[in-house]
């Protein structure tokens, strides 16, 4: 099946490490949140990190997450650059992302 140049494959992006503007790992891409705009579905947000993984697996209530770092982040579509699908990176400082709530 031929792949067009501007096509992205969600199944290959899931689990990819996301890097911040200083090339440090923020977490892995775990969820893609889509919303309907007129007659098309678009990606509005991405969930990154361990909390997002637990939520995706629907076991968040079991998830005790050690450490002081936030367990996950939610990034708007324009806060992640997917031009290199093997190496997604933030376009903004990590502080600009929404933090996913810890349990």
């Amino acid at each position, binding site marked *: 099946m031929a792949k067009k140049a501007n096509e992205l*494959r969600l199944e*290959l992006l899931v689990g990819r490490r996301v890097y911040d503007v200083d090339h440090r790992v923020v977490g892995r891409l775990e969820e893609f*949140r889509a919303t309907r705009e007129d007659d098309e579905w678009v990606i509005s947000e991405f969930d990154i990190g361990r909390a997002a993984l637990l939520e995706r697996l629907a076991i968040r209530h079991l998830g005790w997450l050690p450490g002081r770092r936030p367990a996950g982040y939610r990034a708007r579509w324009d806060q992640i650059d997917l031009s290199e699908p093997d190496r997604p990176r933030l376009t903004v400082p990590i502080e600009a992302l929404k933090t996913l709530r810890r349990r």
Partner: protein
Amino acid sequence: MDEPLRLVRNVLDKQIYDANDVRLGKVDGVVLLSRQGRPPRVIALVSSMPTAWRRLSPRLGDWIERFQRWLAPDLRVGTRIRFEHVVHTGIDVNVDIDGTKTDAFVWENWIRKTFVEKMPGGTGSGEKGE
């Protein structure tokens, strides 16, 4: 505003049912379209063996695709269903199209015609006494 649709949790790897409740396969992939200055658009669901294997190993996926083309060069390798046809997601994914008008069954039909029907008793329905 509606709750966002979670594509990994509620779409990827889910069973696809057509408008007649016939199973068309699993959602092995989701195609997105990257656009300059606009959010990526969700284009289509993909159900195909190379797509599924490519998640494990891109090289293995490419090999399976080449093998399928070698086996049956005329057959399409996978099924793409435009995302506009998705009417429900969750435990399963329901689409509003007739699966028989897609490429979902080309490999089943090819295997039936090429192998199964050539075996003794291969043309019956499988019922006892046929």
